[in-house]
């Protein structure tokens, strides 16, 4: 049982780390602020959640497990909010859009980009 938990925890930690590294690669490779938001919000959130769950599998104190799972839940709840706020603020201040933009829903009027 101990070995199985250790293996599961190791797999979760490696997956979470891979997702976090993917976030940084995305920050360097993606074209504009909205795509960076996509990388930083989605993959980083899941990466943190996987790392925290992997750590929770290795700890045998109920209080610590609760804190780790609570941190994961907070990440899953707050990352969409912060990404949405930052994206809207960037759009309001006129951040540049890449040439691959298909649709600008916050534009006035909402229009496909030509």
């Amino acid at each position: 049982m101990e070995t199985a938990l250790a293996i599961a925890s190791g797999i979760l930690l490696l997956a979470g780390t891979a997702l976090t590294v993917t976030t940084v690669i995305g920050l360097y490779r993606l074209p504009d602020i909205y795509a960076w938001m996509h990388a930083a919000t989605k993959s980083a959130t899941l990466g943190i959640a996987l790392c925290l769950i992997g750590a929770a599998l290795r700890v045998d104190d109920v209080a610590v497990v609760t804190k780790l799972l609570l941190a994961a839940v907070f990440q899953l709840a707050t990352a969409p909010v912060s990404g949405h706020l930052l994206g809207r603020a960037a759009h309001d201040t006129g951040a540049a859009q890449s040439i691959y933009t298909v649709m600008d829903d916050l534009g006035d009027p909402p229009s496909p980009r030509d």
Partner: protein
Amino acid sequence: MIVVAGICLTALVLSAALCLVRVWRADGLADRAVALDTVTATIVSGIAVGIAVTGDGIYADIALVLGLLGFLATVAISRFMARRGP
């Protein structure tokens, strides 16, 4: 377990360093805020790896608070941008 932790921590430290370069060379407040958010995410992941390898839960509070602090920082920066411009 120690091998997994070594791989994870090396990758996370490299990621955080690349993010800090991104913060340094950013061309705008939103770019900088996204990069700082990613630095926070990397640190929380590293704390989780540290808890897993030592089995010591004393750092769990730091992971919890740092996650919330990153959220608050991003919200504050976006409110500031909405009021003051980029």
